[in-house]
């Protein structure tokens, strides 16, 4: 155990817990930061992961433009991105994060590794969703005179849309989790509060409050996601 941590824990026994009345002032901005962080990340992940998943699917043998080599390469990249634990990835790409954001702490520094981890995850989910669309659907759009882009938009993405929304839900929840992990590098948000107050200062009140907020947030995201999937299904 490091000196700082030992100090933190001893100090925790002497410091009073944050009073309940002070919680909103601490947690509301933190929650706002989490929302911004996850929101920005998901926008970028969607914008990058959707085309990546579409290309990965259509370069495969049954796709619209089979390219076995490119497919294998994309597959390798996606698998690599998926195989590193987030904490390891975050540390490993610090030079890259520094290059892009000019800093290694705070919200911008957290967004980079979250995007790097989230994009291959989402691309894989999209690829799986597209694979579930019967080939006959692609055929009928092609036979109707659709271009590759039209076939992708109307037959593939449109048919897989409920599954893609489901993937967005899963991905968003994973990003909430990652944002809490990113809290350890001072990224801000609920995770940061949980680490600094709950862990380092042993503040049970804050710890419990952050847990409740995370549980509630995940539940709400899941419920909204499920509702959107049901609506998208048209049945």
């Amino acid at each position, binding site marked *: 155990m490091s000196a700082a941590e030992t100090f933190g824990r001893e100090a925790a026994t002497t410091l009073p817990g944050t009073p309940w009345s002070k919680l909103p002032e601490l947690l509301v901005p933190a929650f706002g930061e989490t929302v911004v962080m996850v929101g920005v990340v998901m926008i970028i992940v969607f914008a990058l992961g959707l085309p990546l998943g579409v290309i990965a699917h259509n370069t495969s043998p049954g796709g619209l433009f089979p390219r076995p080599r490119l497919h294998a390469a994309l597959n390798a990249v996606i698998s690599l991105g998926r195989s590193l634990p987030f904490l390891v990835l975050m540390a490993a790409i610090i030079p890259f994060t520094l290059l892009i954001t000019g800093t290694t702490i705070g919200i911008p520094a957290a967004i980079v590794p979250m995007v790097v981890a989230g994009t291959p995850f989402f691309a894989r989910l999209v690829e799986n969703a597209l694979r579930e669309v*019967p080939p*006959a*659907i692609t*055929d*009928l*759009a*092609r*036979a*109707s*005179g*659709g*271009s*590759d882009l*039209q076939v992708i938009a*109307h*037959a593939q993405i*449109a*048919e897989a*849309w409920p599954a893609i929304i489901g993937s967005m839900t899963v991905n968003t929840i994973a990003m909430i989790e990652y944002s809490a992990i990113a809290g350890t590098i001072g990224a801000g948000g609920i995770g940061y509060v949980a680490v600094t107050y709950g862990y380092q200062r042993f503040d049970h009140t804050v710890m419990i409050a952050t847990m409740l907020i995370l549980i509630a947030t995940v539940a709400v995201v899941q419920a909204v996601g499920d509702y959107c999937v049901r609506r*998208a*299904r*048209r*049945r």
Partner: protein
Amino acid sequence: MITITNLSKNFSDGDRHSIVLDAINLSVERGEILAVVGPSGAGKSTLARCINLLGRPSSGSIVVDGVELTGLRAAELRVARRSIGTIFQASHMLSRRTAAENIALPLEYMGVVREERDARVLELLERVGLAQHAHRYPHQLSGGQRQRVGIARALALRPSVLLADEATSGLDPDNVESVIALLRELRQDLGLTILMITHDMQMVRKIADRVARLSHGRIIESGPLLDLLVDPESQLGNLLLPSPSGEDDSIDGGGQVWRVVYGSDHVAPTWLAAINRALGAEVHLLTASIETIRRHQVGHATISLPANLPEANIRRFLSEQGLQGYLVASPSKGGREKVGERIEV
């Protein structure tokens, strides 16, 4: 019009190669309905997919309305496909679009403006009898209704050629009738060239002008429908109009059994009585039927003649009468020997 020359299609799966279509030659004239029949796995759907180039042929040429399709680039192919309507074997629809929106798909792709598109879709919905279901989603439609959406979609761009891959499979007899009527009407009104794949021999008898039988990737028999029906040696003719008794082996009696086929346009209705007079032999009529097919009467009969009557005499008599006959079974030395074979579709 469709002209297919030397079309082959192989699938290679790792080191396993399979030849699914083997040097097919086939043509369908403008306004003609060609039925392609054959057992499951013969390559019928593969043939249809090659014609609209959903599957690239391994070799050979496909000319539709004077355009060689195999050499076209992607954009040119999309334009060429507008003149080919395709009805698929399974009645797939885009699940998040209504019937009307599904039918509109080819029109959207062609860039038809909204009002014109809506008008055309309405016309098509009426043509296939779905006007009151225009705004239903696929899961709210029956299989037959979905199939008719598929037909309407195939017709949306007023194609000159229609490929129908088992357009009536899974439909009840009423729906089959309405699809048959629709196809007939389309051929009549629009001069549509139709290549139709089916297992339904009754449907073939009702609308095909010509029939081709595909087996193991080859066309093994083809010809005009009526010619096949009155050719007793034609396996395809047999398939199209099986003898009414079903099983020839069940016929008893110890005599020689002949199958006789004729187009009654050329044959006197009294031919049966004439046998008696000409051959001086007793004839047993085992089965008989006369069907009107496309305004021509086609008669089928199975008759039993005394075993000792010389085959040559019988043949001579039959041909004098304009009848086509062949020996189905004769009592040979060892016992009853079956002549001819049974084939399945």
